[in-house]
């Protein structure tokens, strides 16, 4: 187990799961690393322990971790006064500033070192096994029922499963369109491009340089999609190639 990479990835996954507080991320990172160490001590294969832990984190609900506190009555009054003052202030300011929407608050840190120039490879989601529900090539479209060339593969996964970059590169496009739903397109070296469709969340920005293994978003069911899954494409010089041939790292 490469502990630095595992540590970084755990912290990253926690932030993606909605944990904003630095101290909580630090504490939970120690929790999960302790768990991995314990599993390995019990004889579990370290890679498997790491993978299963990542999956556990991806399924975490950060809202459970909020400490609820009953405010005494005088604090409520103070809070109301504060809110009213703040609202008034923003009301006065609102015409003079226009905030840019959709600016992610934290950009995931690079997760793994890799040799540049290698084609994108490995699994595009953090999941133990890949359940490919639709292969590359000619197929009947599940939605439109027409026979069409499928430009990628569909991998079934739960909504929220982390989607990761399969190679170092640059995000050239993100957004939402009717068919792909929320999508990300990444350009890699040697004329390779990867595309990720039907996401529920996008965690990167256009023009962002990313590293292989970095979490770029979450699996979803957006766009023309019958069930939660990731549509994953690899293109070489603009021509779609079979991603299945690149799934092994």
């Amino acid at each position, binding site marked *: 187990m490469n*502990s630095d990479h595992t540590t970084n990835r755990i912290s990253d996954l926690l932030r993606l799961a909605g944990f904003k507080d630095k101290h909580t991320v*630090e504490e939970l990172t*120690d929790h999960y690393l*302790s768990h991995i160490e*314990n599993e390995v001590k019990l004889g579990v294969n370290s890679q498997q322990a790491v993978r299963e832990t990542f999956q556990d984190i991806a399924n975490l609900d950060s809202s459970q*971790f909020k400490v609820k506190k009953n405010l005494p009555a005088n604090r409520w009054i103070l809070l109301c006064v504060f809110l009213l003052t703040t609202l008034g202030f923003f009301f006065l300011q609102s015409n003079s500033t226009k905030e840019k929407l959709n600016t992610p608050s934290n950009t995931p840190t690079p997760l793994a070192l890799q040799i540049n120039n290698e084609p994108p490879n490995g699994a595009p989601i953090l999941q133990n096994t890949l359940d490919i529900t639709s292969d590359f090539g000619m197929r009947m479209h599940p939605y439109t029922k027409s026979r069409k060339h499928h430009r990628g593969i569909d991998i079934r996964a739960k909504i929220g499963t982390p989607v990761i970059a399969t190679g170092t590169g640059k995000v050239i496009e993100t957004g939402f369109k009717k068919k792909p739903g929320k999508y990300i397109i990444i350009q890699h070296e040697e004329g390779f491009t990867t595309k990720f469709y039907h996401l529920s969340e996008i965690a990167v920005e256009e023009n962002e340089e990313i590293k292989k293994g970095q979490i770029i978003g979450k699996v979803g069911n957006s766009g023309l999609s019958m069930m939660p899954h990731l549509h994953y494409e690899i293109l070489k010089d603009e021509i779609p190639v079979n991603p299945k041939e690149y799934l092994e790292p």
Partner: protein
Amino acid sequence: MDSNKKFLNGTLNTIVLALLRDNGRMYGYEICQKTKEATNNQINLTEGAIYPTLHRLEKEGLLFSTKEKVNGRVRKYYHVNQSSIKEVNSQINLLAQFVGNLRTLLKPSL
């Protein structure tokens, strides 16, 4: 495990306080493991249960925490605040008494 969850709702605070009082400082994962071992895998505390409890008890002043570097990372240890030991003891005793009463009430002979 659902029934355990139901019962833990009102008792987890006290269980954590008792573990910390009797074992000295402990960190979150250690508390989960200790509980699991002591109950023969019957009570499995989740992260979503243990950490909010620890954080709340710390906010209330019954616990305090220290940080230490372990294996290159930061570990947060919790301790019972000795200035609150009376209250901690009283909470533990009350729960122990309640459990005793439950045992009497749930006796099959009754």
